[in-house]
């Protein structure tokens, strides 16, 4: 079963990982989440992610 994020913080601290390092990781995560939030498009157009190779093949040039 997946652990909730709050549990992970406690689990890492309990193993002796310094709070400063865990704090850096949390700060990095928040920065990345903000970037992902900014690229969320029109909910009506949102689709399940497909393999990038399908999109790459669609853009494959056959003229060279």
């Amino acid at each position, binding site marked *: 079963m997946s652990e909730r994020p709050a549990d992970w913080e406690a689990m*890492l601290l309990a193993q002796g*990982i310094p709070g400063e390092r865990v704090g850096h990781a949390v700060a990095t*995560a928040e920065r990345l*989440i903000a970037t992902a939030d900014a690229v969320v498009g029109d909910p009506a157009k949102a689709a399940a992610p497909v393999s990038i190779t399908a999109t790459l093949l669609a853009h494959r040039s056959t003229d060279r």
Partner: protein
Amino acid sequence: MTPTLSKSLEEIAGLLRSGCVTAAELAETHLEALARIDSSLNAVARLEPESAMERAARLDDAIAAGAEIGPLTAAPLAHKDLYGRKGWLQEAGAKILSGERAKATATTCAALDRAGAMDLGRLNTVEFALGSEGRNVHTGPVRNPWNPAYVPGGSSSGSAAAVAAGAVPAALGSDTGGSIRLPAAACGLVGLKPTAGLVGRSGIFPLSGSLDTAGPLCQTVRDAAILLGALAGHDPADPQSVHLPRVDYLAEIEDGLRGLRIGIARQHFFDPIATEIGAALETAIAAIGEEGARVSDTVLPGIAAANRLTTLIINVEASTQHRPWLAARATDYGPETLERMMAGLFIPAQAYLAALMERQRLLAAVMEAAFADNDAILTPVWISELSEIEEPQHGNFGRRIEDTGHCTRAFNFLGLPAVVLPCGISAKGLPIALQLVSRPYAEALLLRAARGIERALAFAETYRPGVVA
């Protein structure tokens, strides 16, 4: 025996064909060279002399019996310590994997076996390939053959150092955010990250299933074409692998730059850039124009977000795979690796899926804006000086990897093929490189452009590293 160190694959194949050298001599010479450079560069994880000498003896027997000598016959290679060969140690530069043996041979290693190559051993990597400079607290830092006081780039750091020092003509690396291209660039080599899906990845210890790619680091563009020809192909054990017709990557490689359209992606990629790196790039761009390519500026819309979204995907996928170890053995990771892994634990599924979906949208936008009128896009690789190995490590490791991967990570996000090659030398005697990116599965065109630039700049004829085997 004719010396074979610091020679290209093509040169070594020529010596083998002319009878100047045998497979056994090649294996012995290059095993010794790897052992020799290891004392100053720390490039080697472990050598496999018994296996290599047995393989060499079989190859010599086959050659004596009239077997055809191909471009990779008896090529003395060694690979990043992520590449599995059944029964060999596969430790990925990690304490957590200490003593672990590969259960299967990587598809790529099997492909090179079929092409006749020899496998001499494994080369050092950043822990679990999650770093861009070549540092590893468990195995020690790999050093740059051009100046051992400096990092060689990572995460395929041992591959780059061993090839640049001439101990092997080529090595395989892996590239999730720049891990082939950054060390190849830092060590004055050619490094190729193929289009996602072109080269199978099964048997390579994974970092991020969505973004990992496998490819070569080597001394010449022609050698990259030879290796790609052997490596490209469908891998049924890799869900990202594609079925495509075989391509002869050497067929048009000498056609030159005339008539090609090269877009210079100044926005984002050149901003900011160290002065001497920018100057070397401008000199190379001028030379490309003089060779007959049409050179013009281009813009990749929305590309700035791709770097962070690459980090997000890597961190989430790596932390998912490593969850049991993170829960029980977090102190067995190096601090740099752990901090990046940990970040993935705090990212919700919604953000991860948003990042994956953005790949499709951004790829379509970049294709329309930048590739409708260009055959290839040119960017820098490193935009700032390499670090000294003794430089104290502090601060936020998550942000640092984004800084070093400023020019590389976006093309893992987009899945596009990219090649790096040297274009100048810094005041400190360290190589400066450029990156070319092309359309999906247009590696033949990409390598033609790279070969044209390599010929025009003649870097390898002008400069040599400080440490050679």
